[in-house]
């Protein structure tokens, strides 16, 4: 904001020194500002500055939080959730295979896989699901 038009006259070599001196006598008087007004002005400036600071902090942290939330949301969408055993569906050997793979990988299977209700999800549950998959209809075909 210090363009050529805003250059103070005392710094401008094209201004005559006498003119500068006369103008200073006429308008160079210091204005008396009451201390209360002065303090109010400072207070308003301080409040305004604080508001801007708060806004900047809010934008900085809010933006960061929003970015983290977006990353988490995408990650949740991309990472497949742990499979759930649904005995209502047609049970096949693939259900038992799914649990066996989870146990082999060391992942913690969903508690719905505890088909024998013994509180532990292990090979016995795999066998129980497989047994259900190959179960013949009652009475069988003789």
């Amino acid at each position, binding site marked *: 904001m210090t363009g050529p038009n805003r250059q103070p006259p005392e710094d401008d070599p094209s201004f005559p020194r006498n003119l500068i001196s006369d103008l200073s006598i006429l308008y160079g008087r210091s204005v008396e500002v009451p201390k209360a007004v002065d303090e109010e002005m400072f207070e308003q400036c301080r409040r305004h500055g604080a508001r801007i600071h708060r806004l900047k902090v809010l934008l900085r942290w809010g933006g960061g939080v929003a970015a983290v939330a977006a990353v988490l949301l995408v990650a949740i969408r991309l990472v497949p959730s742990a499979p759930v055993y649904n005995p209502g569906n047609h049970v096949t050997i693939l259900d038992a295979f799914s649990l066996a793979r989870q146990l082999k990988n060391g992942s913690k299977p969903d508690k719905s896989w505890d088909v024998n209700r013994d509180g532990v999800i292990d090979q016995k549950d795999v066998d129980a699901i497989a047994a259900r998959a*190959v179960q013949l209809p009652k009475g069988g075909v003789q």
Partner: protein
Amino acid sequence: MNRWIAILLLACSIFIEGENTGATEAKPVAQASSSRFAYVDIYVDTKSESLAAYQFNFSADQGHMTVVGIEGGEHAAFSKNPPYYDLHAIGQNRVILAAFSTANDLPHGKTRMARIHLMIEGDPPHYTLKLDVAANAAGKEISGVITFIEGATP
């Protein structure tokens, strides 16, 4: 005199009836002698895909076939343990077989997955075989062709 004749006729009829009953009971013995033992090898061909799990239905629509035993497949991943099956299938003419393997080395191409031992009485049965599901190591369903070859047990 007539009374004695009646008693004699009754005794003769009872004797003849007993003879007939004995012949009827002997019939299964004659049938049993015509029974034979056989086996059916089940093959699954998944081409280039590795086979990690399968389930199929095996039954006989005609004839008199009884499942008497089941063996696992020829590949190491499926030979250690027999496939899963309903114990009630033994003595029936239908069985659902299923197995999976979490081993790293899995079969691909045409592989014998199971052998079913049978007792066949009378006419040769007409077998029905249907692959319910097959999957690769990732648990993803894959297509496969299931076939069988019947062999006679010596």
